[in-house]
């Protein structure tokens, strides 16, 4: 660990003392192999409509600022790129709606990443796409620019349920988007689906899964609808205008998902993620394996060796910066906190954590014994299980992951 980091005594406290990543000193350390990021997350904060369940940072009606944003992002890529010596193995363009950007702006962006970032030979480079905004010229451009994975936010194939989420796309366009991506040569395709939408039945959900499977994507993310604070959806729930899907039904939907996708040849590798063999999302795995990555764009979160931060979630602020963007939520956990995070992340993977890694984690910090006790308890109650060389959630335990993890962190 770089020596200057140990002098930070932040210990989970939010601090406003750091104006930008430049002040953390971390940038200068990116040369060193053990601080070097394995990937990059790039946030594109534009949407043409705000979905009612979404609490990611995004703006609508900002056509005028997109060019300025891309110019600033290109700057940021150039500056950080100058410090990166190890090749990146994953890059992920998330949003917002990255495919909303003009084709010409994408041209600038793709040129910048190829020019400024060191990218590994077989790197996975993903762009999140809204089915409505996928267009042939853009797909061709992305493919030529090195994008090899598309993640499509389908959420549901039933107009009623899309309406409940305030998502406005024609379900038919999902198929069209996949075909367009495939025609341009991008074959690694993910479909995002949401279950437990108000009004959805088990059969509705199984039909959605069948539709998704029939499009044969290489990867499927299935998320139970989460009611995030300060979203219109949660407000509607509070006002009683929508009814939350019953907990038992949601659990049944999840169990049915595991069964159906396994039968269809998808392997579950994380609580909400399934993939055809060899198509696991490398970027996602990087998060769960607690690797280092760099964050670009407003509101993007980065992580280097236990130090976490977030770029200021404000486009105006982001555009004002002349060097690196302002940051907030800087956090460097103590050893116990770091062990807790590693367990929280690693156990979400279906294969769990290697026993030798677990032992090493439990030796660190002061709470090793208590954590071991919690693990034994949950193993006994059938939520965790030990294989020859790993500890992992049981099928039942996956549904109760937060109950276990909140005891462990």
């Amino acid at each position, binding site marked *: 660990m770089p020596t200057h980091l140990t002098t930070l005594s932040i210990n989970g406290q939010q601090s406003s003392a750091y104006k930008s990543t430049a002040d953390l000193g971390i940038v200068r350390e990116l040369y060193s192999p053990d601080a070097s990021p394995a990937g990059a997350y790039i946030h594109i904060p534009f949407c043409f409509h705000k979905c009612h369940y979404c609490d990611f940072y995004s703006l609508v009606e900002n056509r005028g600022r997109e060019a300025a944003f891309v110019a600033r992002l290109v700057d940021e890529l150039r500056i950080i790129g100058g410090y990166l010596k190890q090749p990146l193995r994953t890059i992920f363009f998330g949003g917002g709606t990255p495919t909303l950007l003009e084709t010409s702006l994408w041209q600038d962006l793709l040129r910048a990443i190829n020019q400024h970032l060191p990218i590994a030979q077989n790197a996975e480079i993903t762009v999140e796409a809204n089915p409505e905004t996928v267009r042939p010229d853009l797909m061709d451009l992305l493919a030529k620019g090195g994008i090899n994975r598309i993640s499509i936010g389908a959420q549901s194939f039933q107009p009623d349920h899309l309406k409940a989420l305030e998502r406005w796309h024609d379900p038919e366009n999902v198929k069209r988007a996949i075909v367009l991506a495939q025609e341009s040569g991008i074959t690694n395709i993910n479909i995002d689906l949401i279950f437990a939408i108000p009004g959805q039945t088990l059969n509705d959900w199984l039909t959605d899964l069948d539709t998704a499977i029939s499009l044969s994507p290489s990867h499927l993310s299935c*998320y139970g609808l989460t009611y995030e604070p300060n979203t219109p959806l949660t407000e509607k729930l509070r006002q009683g205008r929508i009814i939350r899907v019953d907990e038992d039904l949601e*659990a049944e939907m999840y169990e049915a998902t595991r069964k159906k996708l396994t039968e269809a040849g998808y392997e579950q590798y994380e609580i909400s993620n399934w993939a055809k063999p060899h198509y696991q999302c490398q970027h996602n795995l990087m998060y769960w394996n607690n690797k280092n990555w760099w964050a670009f764009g407003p509101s993007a*979160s980065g992580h280097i060796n236990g130090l976490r931060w977030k770029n200021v979630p404000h486009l105006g602020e982001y555009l004002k910066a002349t060097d690196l963007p302002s940051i907030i939520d800087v956090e460097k956990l103590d050893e116990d906190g770091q062990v807790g995070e590693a367990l929280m992340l690693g156990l979400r993977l279906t294969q769990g954590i290697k026993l030798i890694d677990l032992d090493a984690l439990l030796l660190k910090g002061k709470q090793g014994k208590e954590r071991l006790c919690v693990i034994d308890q949950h193993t006994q109650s059938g939520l965790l299980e030990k294989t020859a060389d790993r500890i992992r959630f049981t099928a039942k335990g*996956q549904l*109760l992951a*937060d109950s276990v993890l909140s005891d462990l962190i």
Partner: protein
Amino acid sequence: MKATMHSFPYFRTQPSRLTAYSSGLKTPLHIRNFSIIAHIDHGKSTLADRLLQMTEAVSERDAKEQLLDSMDLERERGITIKASAVTVTHEYKGETYQLNFIDTPGHVDFTYEVSRALTACEGALLVVDATQGVEAQTVANAYLAINNDLELIPVINKIDLPTARPEDVAMEIEQVLGLSTDDCIYCSAKTGEGIMEMLDCICEKLPPPRKSEVKETRALIFDSHYDDYRGVVVYIRIFDGSLTVGDKVRMMGTGRTFTITELGRYTPTQTKSKTLGHAEVGYMVAAIKSLEDVRVGDTITLDTNPANEALPGYEEPMQVVFCEFYPATQTEDSGKKGDYETLRDAINKLHLNDASFTYEPIHSEALGFGFRCGFLGLLHMEIVQERLEREGGVEIVQTAPTVSYQIELRDGTLVEIHNPADLPDLSNVVSIREPIVKLEIICPTENIGDLMKLCDGRRGTYKSQQFISQTRQILDYELPLAEIIYDFYDKLKSITRGYGTMDYEITGYRADRLVKVNILVNNQPVEALSIICHRDIAEKRSRLILQKLRKQIARHQFEIPLQAAIGGKIIARETIKGVRKNVTAKCYGGDISRKRKLLEKQKRGKKRMKTVGSVNIPQEAFLAVLEQE
């Protein structure tokens, strides 16, 4: 309208036009001591104001609306909480009369205080609203006055209103109270119409004070209040002898002695006087620190020459309704003054002003530190809570009210408990007795059937029924107090669409088939959830409680049985299913900190809840159980 507590508008010590009158009054024959009694909102306060104005005690310009109601709270609720006394003069047939007007609280919970105030009078104005007619409290207060041998003048007020029906109301008064329609005064406190006639009638019809019975001094305390500067101000009516500044006096009930530092009257500005003579009404200040040293109904006598016998009728205040107050938030920060301390200070301070409620510190495992308080009745409880919040600046969680029970033990002793949790071992208990009330309802005839159904469903015993007029009746019932303290009044109001009124009086304690119901969560009894109720409704109430608990307690990883039991017998059961799903789907685009914080929040939530048999019971669950339906 912004008046601090007890800053009576007539406390200003400006020179009064009337300061000279006390020496001008020659003979006690011209003293008239009287009260105004009325149902809430029948215009008593407005009438009092008008009366002061017409006797020129207050100029129109100075007249504050409802002069005698002093506290903010009283004004807002439109009721009078504390009695006070005002002295005015009135010329009648060429003679000067000293009229001592003694104000009374208008609510059932203060029946004792009302009766003491009435004892200080020889007569009373019975005010009835010309649009509303006779109501439950009109009747209750009228009988109180009649029992005190007071001469009553029926006054029909608000005759200026278009919906007034004064003749009908006069008939009601004659029908119910036997006061002749010929004796009624018709007036409007608002316009002033009939007020002069009323004043003349007071002088003419109300009897003069009775003569002294003993040589020694005896003065009745009929009210008191706490003044930040002078200590307790005591309102008195002198029955025998006189009091002079400098006298050493003794309270015959409490035995405490004090030296008088000030005497006087409110005219309505405060007017000091060296002495108060026979039959007079006024105030006394004697460096009394605490209201607890002054009991309404007690007799003041001279320490050097005490009376043998006190004036009759003194009683200790009786608390019959109990509930617990907790601070709405419990500050964990040990450095700062906690919310519990703020509540304690507020209660101490309020108790200086109202010694008729009791309080003792308690600790509930569910709700933390707080106080169990006893009150004269339901309204008294509400008033205390509001005053604590308003004047003490604390936010309060109030548990549902319960009544006091008398427990008869095998060894013949009788213990009183205020909390089901305090019930002694049942093998030692012969019987559980509960307070019984005499309830009087006045309602439209068409609602009689529904109201009888309501009372019968509350273990009521029918007593009598009487017509007031063709359209309204009085219904008398006897019921356990426990049956009316929750929602009875609301039900009454909804059945009668607001037209029904009620009044009650505690008549004693009676044994019934009362049982203690224990609530078991995951097979463990939870004392804070136990209740005392009648055997016949135990199942129904238990089911309601369990259903509420089921909603309030989150699903756990295991199934949780909820049971209600009388002794070893389970009488109701519910089950909380095991949790099926608790997992965050998303990874928040790499915002790991956020995910971790969500889990930490869950972890803290687990810690904060009270754990019973490894079940986490949130605070809300304890409160929900205490609420009714």
